[in-house]
C-alpha cells in the first residue's frame, strides 16, 4: 500500500472504458464538453464573471466535480486562508488559494513609520518568527545608515534568532501532526515553545512580538534570568523534542501518510521560489546563512543539511534536523559571546542618506528579505518584505492534483505557512 499510487478516479475509468468501447465499435471518440462555468455562488460569494484565464479554469466544473470551500475559518488552514478545492469525490482536481484575509497593509504602515518604529510593525508579519522579521530590517537599515552593530549585539541577535528557530520548527512538528489528527505532539511542542518565549520575554519584555532589535544593536543586554532560564531549557530541550519525535518519526501511520506524499523536485522548487527547509528537503543546499552570510554566521561552525526525498516526510525530517542544528549553534554562540556594549551610538530619529539596501535572512520558513529605499527622510521611502511562506504556497496547487482532500492538509502543513507573513 504505497502512498505514491494515484487514486484511480471512477469517472475517469468510466470514460476510458466508454472510449474503448466506441473505438471497438468504430465510432468517433466522444467529445467531452468543456464543462460549465460554476461561478462563485457555489462557494458562497456574490457571483461575478471570471477575471482571468486561471480563474475560469478553476471555477469551471466538469461533470461530477464539485467545489469545496475550505476557509477562511477552517481548523487546519493555519489561520485565515481560503482554499477553493475542486474535487471529484474526494480526489482533488485543482486548488485555488485565496489570500488576503489577514492583509493589514504592513508595508504601507512601515513607509509611514520611523526607522525605529518599523520594528513594531514587522513583528506580526510572520508571527512564529518575530525575531527574524526584525533581523532583516535591522540589517537593511544599518546598511542604509552606514553603521555596524557592536559584536556583542550581533551575538545576542544570533542567539535569539536561533532560539526563535527552535520553537518555530518545534511547532511545525506539532501542527503537522495535528493536521493529520494526532492530538498530542502539538502540546509537547508548546511546552518547548512556552519555555523559549518565557526566556525571550525575560530579555525583551514581550512574549511573542518582541520588538527587540534596534538599528545598530539590540534593546537590552542579557540578564541573569535569561541566562538561568537558558541553562535550564538547554538541559531539557532535547528530551522535550524527543517526546514528539518518538510519537511521530517511526510511527507507521505517520510514515504511511507522509512518505512519498507531495514530492517536490529541486528544479520545481527553485522555479516556484520555495526556500528554506522545504527547498533543502528537496536536495538544494541553499541556506542564506551560508550563501550570503550575515551577522556572525561566518564565525559559527555548521553545515547546510539537506534531504533527498522532497516529500512531506523529508520536510519533516529536515525541520527536526535543523532544530537540532540550531541548538548546536546556540551552544556555540553562548560559548563565544564577547563582552561589550549592545547598542551603537545612533540618534533618536534616524535619517539615512538616500540610497537602497537589500538584506536577506534565513527565517524558519526560508528566505526572508527586506528591500528598503531611503529618500533622506525619517521614514523609509519604500519598504518591501519578501515572505517565504507567501511564495511557498504556490507549490500547493502544483502538488495536489490527483491526491485526496486529507492530503491537502498534510502537504500544506509541511510547508509550514504562517498567514501573518503570507498576507502581510
Amino acid at each position: 500500500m504505497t502512498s505514491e499510487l494515484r487514486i484511480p478516479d471512477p469517472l475517469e475509468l468510466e470514460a476510458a472504458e466508454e472510449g474503448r468501447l466506441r473505438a471497438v465499435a468504430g465510432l468517433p471518440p466522444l467529445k467531452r464538453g468543456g464543462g460549465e462555468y460554476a461561478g462563485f455562488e457555489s462557494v458562497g460569494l456574490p457571483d461575478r464573471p471570471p477575471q482571468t484565464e486561471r480563474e475560469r479554469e478553476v471555477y469551471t466544473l466538469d461533470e461530477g466535480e464539485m467545489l469545496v470551500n475550505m476557509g477562511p475559518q477552517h481548523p487546519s488552514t493555519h489561520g485565515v486562508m481560503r482554499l477553493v478545492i475542486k474535487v471529484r469525490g474526494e480526489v482533488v482536481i485543482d486548488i485555488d488559494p485565496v489570500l488576503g484575509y489577514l492583509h493589514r497593509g504592513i508595508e504601507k504602515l512601515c513607509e509611514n513609520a520611523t526607522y525605529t518604529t518599523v520594528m513594531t510593525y514587522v513583528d506580526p508579519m510572520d508571527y512564529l518568527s518575530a525575531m527574524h522579521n526584525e533581523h532583516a530590517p535591522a540589517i537593511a537599515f544599518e546598511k542604509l545608515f552606514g553603521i555596524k552593530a557592536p559584536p556583542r549585539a550581533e551575538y545576542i541577535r544570533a542567539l535569539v534568532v536561533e532560539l526563535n528557530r527552535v520553537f518555530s520548527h518545534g511547532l511545525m512538528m506539532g501542527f503537522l501532526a495535528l493536521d493529520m489528527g494526532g492530538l498530542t505532539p502539538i502540546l509537547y511542542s508548546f511546552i518547548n515553545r512556552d519555555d523559549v518565549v518565557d526566556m525571550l520575554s525575560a530579555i525583551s519584555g514581550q512574549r511573542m512580538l518582541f520588538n527587540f532589535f534596534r538599528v545598530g544593536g539590540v534593546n537590552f543586554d542579557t540578564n541573569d534570568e535569561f541566562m538561568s532560564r537558558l541553562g535550564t531549557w538547554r538541559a531539557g530541550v532535547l528530551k522535550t523534542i524527543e517526546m514528539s519525535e518518538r510519537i511521530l518519526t517511526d510511527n507507521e501511520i505517520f510514515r504511511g501518510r507522509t512518505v512519498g506524499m507531495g514530492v517536490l523536485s529541486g528544479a520545481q522548487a527553485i522555479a516556484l521560489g520555495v526556500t528554506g527547509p522545504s527547498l533543502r528537503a528537496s536536495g538544494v543546499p541553499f541556506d542564506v546563512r551560508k550563501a550570503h552570510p550575515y551577522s556572525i554566521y561566518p564565525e559559527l561552525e555548521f553545515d547546510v543539511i539537506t534531504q533527498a526525498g522532497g516529500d512531506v516526510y523529508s520536510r519533516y525530517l529536515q525541520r527536526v534536523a535543523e532544530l537540532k542544528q540550531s541548538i548546536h549553534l546556540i551552544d556555540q554562540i553562548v560559548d563565544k559571546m564577547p563582552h561589550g556594549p549592545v547598542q551603537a551610538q545612533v540618534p533618536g530619529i534616524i535619517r539615512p542618506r538616500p540610497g537602497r539596501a537589500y538584506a536577506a535572512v534565513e527565517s524558519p520558513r526560508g528566505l526572508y528579505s527586506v528591500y528598503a529605499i531611503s529618500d533622506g527622510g525619517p521614514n523609509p521611502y519604500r519598504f518591501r518584505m519578501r515572505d517565504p511562506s507567501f511564495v511557498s504556497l504556490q507549490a500547493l496547487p502544483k502538488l495536489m492534483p490527483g491526491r485526496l482532500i486529507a492530503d491537502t492538509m498534510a502537504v500544506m502543513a509541511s510547508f509550514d505557512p504562517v498567514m501573518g507573513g503570507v498576507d502581510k
Partner: protein
Amino acid sequence: MDLLFGILRFLLATTLLLLMTIPTAFVVIQMELKVIAQMQLRYGPNRVGPWGMFQSTIHGFKFLAKEDHIPDQADRATFTLAPWMVYMAAAMSMLVMPFAPGAIAADFNIGIVYFFAVIGLSVVGLLIAGWASYNKYSLLGGLRSAAQMVSYEIPLTLSVVGVVVLGGTLNFRELIAWQQLHGWMLIWQPVGLGIFYIASLAEINRTPFDMVEADSELVAGPFTEYSGMRFGFFFFAEYVALFIMSGVMTALFFGGWLAPWPFPAQLEGFGGTLYGLLWFFLKSYMFVFVAVWLRATLPRVRVDQLMGMAWKVLLPLAMLNLLVTAGAVLVFNL
C-alpha cells in the same frame, strides 16, 4: 399473568438501559477528558465537583440549553431523524449486553446476530445526517462513514464467526459459559481478537480511524450543521458505542463477567451478579482506556489506506482465520 409480567419486565429493562446509556456516556467522556489530559501533561478538568468529576455531565446538560438550529436548506424531517437513529442504534444494542449473570436484558439465542445487526444501523443515521444537512463537509463525511462502516462490518463479523464456530452458540451467556469451561477465547482466537479490535475501532469511528469526524479535514463531518441537543445525541452515541464495543469484546474474547482466576470465577445469586458486574465493568473500561490511549497517541490514517486495509489485509486474514478455526473444529471435534 405471565404476559403482564413479561411486558413489565420488558418496559423496566428498556427504560433502565436507556437511562443507563446517559451515565455511561458521561463516564466515558470524563475518562477521555481526564486520561488524554494526563497523557498530555495537563491536569484536565478539575473545577466541577471533586477532581472535576462532573465535567462531562456539565457538558451534557449544556447541550440541553443551547439553541437548536436547523439550517434553512436542510431537509427538516431527515435532519431531525438522524441523531435519533444513531443514538437508538447504540442504545438498542445494549439490550443483549451480558453485564453479569442475571443481568442481561434480553437473553436471546441469537444475541450476537442481533447485536451486529443493530450496531450497523448507526451508519444509516450518519448517512442521513450527512445528506440532510445540505453541507459539502457533511456530505463527504456521510459518504465516508458509509464506505468505512460497510467495509469494516465484514471483517468484524467474520472475526466473530470464528468465535461462534468454536463456541457453538450465538448466545452471549452460553459463550461465556463455554469460556469458563475451556478458557478465554483470547487463547483460542488471538488473530480473531486482533481483527475484531481494529475493525471495531473503525466501526465506531475512533482514532486512528476517525475519518468521519475528521476535524482537521472535514470540519466535523456529518455533525457540522448540528447544534444543541441534536449534536449532543451524536456526541453521546459515539461514546456509548465505544463502551458497547469494549463490552462486547470483553464478552466475546475476555470471558465476560468471569473473574480472571478460577477460584470463584463466578458466584451464585445476587452476590454473583455484583461480582460479575465488577469484573465486566473493569474489563470493559480497560478497553475504553486503550481506545483513549490510542486517540492520544496516533494520527489518523487516510481514507484510501483505511479501505485498503479492510479489503486487502483484514478480510483475507479473517477468512483464513475462519477457515483454520472451522478446520480445527472438524478435525479435533472440539
